[in-house]
């Protein structure tokens, strides 16, 4: 198929070359047709006629979805202006009822590939480099671009770009009828670290009926060697990617559980409404986004930064109100606290439903948190996850400093270790309780802001995290920051490796089974309270 296509485009190229500057009407007709093959041939023809300004303009317009057809005539719609696609002349008045021409995936790939290949002839080195990289990531049908690559390779002076072009050329010449050319190409590709190249090489080893796709045995052997080399390079980045996803999940678990570690550790309060404090934080982020969109649209990308303190204080206020109104009266009665806080969680969920509606709300990632950084061909780390990992590290640092370097932190630790004695030496234990609860809740609010960037924000979002948070606190040992950190990261990485191995559903079950066994073996992990219950 590919061979036929490349022949076809060669013919089209020769033909277009002899026809001169104006665009071949057959191409225009093909683009306007409903038949996929005709469209494809037309795009290949455009790519081959690439030096022509009219062809370039039309390709660009196709890639921007700006081409329309009215009757027999092909048009380029640029804002208010309507141009004739063949000549580029502005049409006045514009023809009535233009119907836009749309490309599907394979055609778009071809158009974008052709556009990138044309940019290889730009005078700007940076643009040439960008185009070469783009092609390396995604070339589509190499045979179509072969003539352009040949020409670009002959012209190119810059060593870096030339290097990429050599590889691209090798990639494109895998379909060459000459076995020595193919052998050279395969050997060249062995130096790559891209899954796309590996896929191409694997394709050579496939069988079509009885015969191999690649008839020459030497080429097949070379391909096997090349695949092995690529595999070696891919393996480390695969593992690195898996560890990163584990750390990313761990950082989210940590943010969700850190606040709980404080309230549970200090006061022994089993706060079932903790998940809802996350929800309060996430809705604060939503509210800030709405405020920024309405009032400061130019700074809308920074609403997350503003949401951080707001979420902290709103969640802390809600938490302190809960403590003052309900929990304070139930100290020392864990079961009643459990029930009461569960009731509070229902109240909070319903309140969110009344205020914001039962449906999920949309919290958009700011532009600087979208996309990712490409570390290797098969490893790209999304910005939103990187930011959250860094953010959880920052929150951890602040909490550690607060607990260990401030007077309030000292009081909190004193109350945790020995409440009556702390009271005797003048620590206002009741106030410390309220403040500690407020801080724990505020940290949950911060976790909510982080969650709003990756998960859905809805009234019952907190329910999904309460179990996970408790798992972290239980696993890490109560009242210890270091325990929570290790437990969160450990659970995150283990969950992600299990998911990769057995799927998300089984992984969830296995983790729960693990926790159950753990609690049986180490029950002190569960209720090893260092607070007043022990003393």
């Amino acid at each position, binding site marked *: 198929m590919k061979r036929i296509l490349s022949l076809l485009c060669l013919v089209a190229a020769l033909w277009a070359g002899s026809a001169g500057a104006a665009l071949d009407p057959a191409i225009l007709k093909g683009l306007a047709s409903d038949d996929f093959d005709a469209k494809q041939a037309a795009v290949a023809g455009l790519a081959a006629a690439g030096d022509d300004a009219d062809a370039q303009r039309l390709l660009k317009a196709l890639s921007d979805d700006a081409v329309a057809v009215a009757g027999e005539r092909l048009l380029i719609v640029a804002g208010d202006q309507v141009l004739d696609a063949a000549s580029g002349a502005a049409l006045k008045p514009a023809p009535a009822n233009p119907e836009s021409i749309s490309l599907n995936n394979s055609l778009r790939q071809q158009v974008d590939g052709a556009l990138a290949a044309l940019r290889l002839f730009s005078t700007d080195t940076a643009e040439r480099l960008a185009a070469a990289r783009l092609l390396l990531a995604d070339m589509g049908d190499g045979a179509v671009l072969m003539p352009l690559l040949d020409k670009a390779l002959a012209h190119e002076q810059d060593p870096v770009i030339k290097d990429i072009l050599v590889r691209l050329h090798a990639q494109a010449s895998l379909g060459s009828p000459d076995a020595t050319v193919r052998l050279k190409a395969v050997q060249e590709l062995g130096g790559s670290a891209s899954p796309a190249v590996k896929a191409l090489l694997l394709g050579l080893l496939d069988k079509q009926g009885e015969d191999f796709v690649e008839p020459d045995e030497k080429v097949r052997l070379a391909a096997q060697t090349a695949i092995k080399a690529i595999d070696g390079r891919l393996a480390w980045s695969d593992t690195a990617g898996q560890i990163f996803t584990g750390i990313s999940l761990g950082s989210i678990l940590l943010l969700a559980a850190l606040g709980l570690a404080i309230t549970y550790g200090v006061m022994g309060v089993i706060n079932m409404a903790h998940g809802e404090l996350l929800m309060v934080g996430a809705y604060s982020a939503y509210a800030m986004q709405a405020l920024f969109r309405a009032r400061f649209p130019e700074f809308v990308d920074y609403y997350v930064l503003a949401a951080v303190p707001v979420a902290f204080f709103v969640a802390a206020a809600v938490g302190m109100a809960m403590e003052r109104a309900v929990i304070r009266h139930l100290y020392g009665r864990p079961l009643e606290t459990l029930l009461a806080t569960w009731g509070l969680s229902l109240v909070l969920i319903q309140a969110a439903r009344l205020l914001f509606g039962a449906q999920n709300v949309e919290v958009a990632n700011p532009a600087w948190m979208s996309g990712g950084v490409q570390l290797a061909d098969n490893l790209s780390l*999304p910005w939103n996850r990187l930011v959250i990992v860094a953010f959880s590290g920052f929150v951890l640092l602040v909490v550690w400093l607060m607990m260990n370097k401030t007077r309030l932190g000292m009081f909190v630790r004193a109350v945790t270790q020995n409440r009556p004695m702390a009271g005797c030496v003048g620590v206002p234990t009741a106030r410390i309780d309220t403040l500690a609860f407020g801080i724990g809740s505020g940290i949950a609010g911060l976790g909510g802001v982080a969650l709003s960037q990756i998960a859905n924000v809805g009234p019952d979002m907190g329910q999904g995290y309460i179990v996970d948070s408790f798992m972290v606190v239980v696993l890490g040992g109560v009242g210890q920051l270091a325990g929570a950190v290790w437990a969160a990261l450990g659970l995150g990485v283990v969950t992600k490796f299990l*998911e990769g191995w057995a799927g998300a559903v089984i992984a969830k079950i296995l983790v729960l089974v693990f926790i159950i066994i753990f609690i049986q073996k180490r029950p002190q992990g569960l209720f090893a309270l260092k607070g007043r219950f022990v003393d």
Partner: protein
Amino acid sequence: MQNRRSFIKAAVLSASIAAIGGLSASAYAADTIKVGILHSLSGTMAISETALKETALMTIEEINAKGGVLGKKLEPVVVDPASDWPKFAEKARQLLSQDKVAVTFGCWTSVSRKSVLPVYKELNGLLFYPVQYEGEELEKNVFYTGAAPNQQAIPAVEYLMSKEGGSAKRFVLLGTDYVYPRTTNKILRAFLHSKGVKDEDIMEEYTPFGHSDYQTIIAKIKKFAGEGKKTAVISTINGDSNVPFYKELGNAGLKAKDVPVVAFSVGEEELRGVDAKPLVGHLAAWNYFMSVKNPENDKFIKMYRDWAKKAKLPKAESVVTNDPMEATYVGIHMWAQAVEKAKSTDTDKVIAAMAGQTFKAPSGFTLKMDETNHHLHKPVFIGEIKADGQFNTVWKTKGPIRAQPWSPFIPGNEGKQKL
């Protein structure tokens, strides 16, 4: 003892809360026909189902404005089963035995439909189910206005395997873990086998409802796709998990040109919550797209926009229509026509009158209710996501095709096509 008492307390508390939430006020009036609307307005499915409730209310108002049915006005009874499957059965029973509705329009997930089925059979009620589903079911009390697998899933996979769709050779079957994705994937696997695709070229993955961390799965898909041959993903993910899935897809840079994702439960409404720019080119298969151009559709879209403004829906200026909304709209109109024909709202008489009903649908085709199998004859569209969250139709059938609720690719289904 202390322990047990607390748990009893907890149980009583939760039960009473559930009961309070479940009460729905409904005034009784003899000169109206009651119509039940059974869609989740909260929980994981609310993202999809809320719009169906609005469509149903809009259609009922439209019918009432034209004089109602049999000279009586329709009176909607809306209940919220909160994405909780047992609650669907509870609410269905309440609609049938307490509110005495003549018909119910509702359910989205197959698990909710399966959970209400026994109630409708026992009380001989009438349910209109508006969503594409896995088939393998044919009940006297249910009319299926969504697509059966041969009206959505199979054509979509055929498209992916065609040259036009990128000649995919390997497939990732990705879904939420419940009956619809599992059964659909069973059918698709059998279909792929019949096309010569081997088991090692098929990867099947499931996630729980409400799953929000798709990093591992995307990494796995990337790896699977890197093992040679063109790979495509067939997604039967349902509910709000789609938002994190597509977000992750965009962030991980998995482009439609390399690995196209075709979804069966993602439409215009679900894409409203996502930035669609990184998703351009990913696909969906439906029997209707909002971008379809014809006078019926223009009317339908305008009607819904006006309704959104009137009902003060959130972001009323940007509401969209989608396939299950169209199916709801068609279903209610067909039911009204059948009641007029039967001159009664009696379940059995209406079921008899439904056979062969036709309606000019917003998809631009005149849809017909099959005489024997309770499914609509529907056209199939395959569309690619555009940057504005709409779909660009890249393939469609020439006309409506008949449903095969019992897939011919599953052994033992021969001769089951009729009720």
